[in-house]
C-alpha cells in the first residue's frame, strides 16, 4: 500500500473516532433530555390532575410530585454522564 493512502486512512479513522464521540455526546445528552422532558411533563400534568380532583390531598401529592420530578430528572443526567464519558474519557 502507498504511504499516502495509509496516512489518509489513519486520518480518516481519527476523524471517524472524533465523529463517533460527538455522536455519543449528542445522543446521550439529547435523547436523555427528550426522555426526561416527556417524563417531567407527565409527572406535573398528572399532579395537577390529581390535585384538581382531590384538593385535600395537595400536600401529599406535592411531595410525591417532587420525588418523581427529581427521579426523572436524574435519568437525564445518566444519559449526559454516559455521553460525557464517551466524548472525553473513552
Amino acid at each position, binding site marked *: 500500500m502507498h504511504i499516502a493512502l495509509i496516512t489518509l486512512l489513519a486520518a480518516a479513522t481519527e476523524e471517524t473516532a472524533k465523529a463517533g464521540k460527538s455522536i455519543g455526546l449528542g445522543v446521550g445528552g439529547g435523547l436523555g433530555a427528550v426522555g426526561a422532558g416527556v417524563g417531567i411533563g407527565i409527572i406535573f400534568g398528572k399532579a395537577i390532575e390529581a390535585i384538581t380532583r382531590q384538593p385535600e390531598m395537595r400536600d401529599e401529592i406535592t*411531595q410525591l410530585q*417532587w420525588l418523581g420530578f*427529581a427521579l426523572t*430528572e*436524574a435519568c437525564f*443526567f445518566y444519559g*449526559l*454522564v454516559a455521553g460525557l464519558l464517551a466524548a472525553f474519557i473513552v
Partner: protein
Amino acid sequence: MNATEGGTTKGKSSAKRTLLILAGVWIGGIVVLGAIYGLHGTRNKVYEPQNEFKLESWVHLGIFSINKAVLYLVLAAIATCVSMIYIARRMQARPNKVQAAVELLYELMRNQITGSAMSEEMAAKWFPFVGALFLFIMFSNLIGYIPLPTNTEHKIDIAGLHIPSFSLYAATANLSIPLVLALVVFFSYTYEGVRAKGPIGYLKGLIPGGVHGGMAVAIFFLEVLSNFMRILSLTIRLFANILAGHLIILFMAGALAVILGITALGWFTLPFGVLLFAFEVGLVAALQAFIFATLTAIYLGGAVAEDH
C-alpha cells in the same frame, strides 16, 4: 417593589413597564456591544474560568491531599453543626424567623422524610442519620453557590494583595463525596436488614412474595443487581445535578464570553445565568438533599419490611 405600593392595576402596569425597560436595556446592550466589539472574538487562552473545577492540591499529603473539595466539605460540616447547635441552644417559646424556619425543616424531616417511610420505632432510631444527611447535603449544596476565593489557578489583584479569583464549587459537585454518602447509606440499610431478618432471611426477602422456582432465581439476581445500582443512582443523581448546575451557571454568567472572547455574548447570556442561579439556589439545592434523604429513608424502611 413598586407593584406592592400601588393599586392592583397600577402595580401591574408599572411592573410591566419595568420588565419592558429591562428587556430594552438587554437587547440594546447586545446591539451596542456587538457593534462596538464585533461578533467575532479570539479564543482566550490566558484566563480559563473552567479551572474552577480543577482540583489543585494545596497541602500535599499523598491521597489525603487537601484541596478545594476538602475545604468545601469542612465548611459544610462546620456550617451544619454550628448553625444547628446554636439554634438548638437558643430555643425560645416564641420562635423568631430563623428558629421557625429550622422548626419547619425539622417537621419536614420528621414527618415527611422519615415518618412516612418507616415504622415509628425505627423512625426514632434512624431520624438523626437521615436528618443529618439531609442537612449536610443541603448546606453543602447551598455553600456551593456562594462565590469564594478558591480558584488558586488565577490570582486577582486587590490593593496589592494577590488573592485567588472567586469561584463557585461545591463538595457535592465532586464525584467522591456523593459516592461515599451513598456507600454509607448502602451499608447502613443492608446492616439494618440483616440485623432484622438474619443474613439468609435478608437475601430471601429480596425476592418478592409469590415468585417461585426458576423465576425466583432470576428475580433474585436482578434484585441484587438493582441493590448495587442504587449506589450508582444515588451518587450520579446528586453529583451530576450539582455539577451540571454549576457548569451552566458558569457558562451563562460569563465564561462563554471570556473563553470565546465575544463581549456581546456575555451580555446576552447574563439574564439566563441569573435565572438559572435563582433556580439552582431556590429549588435544586434543597430538592436534591430532600431526594437523597427520602430515598435513604425508603431504602431503610424497605430493608426491614416483611415483603415488598
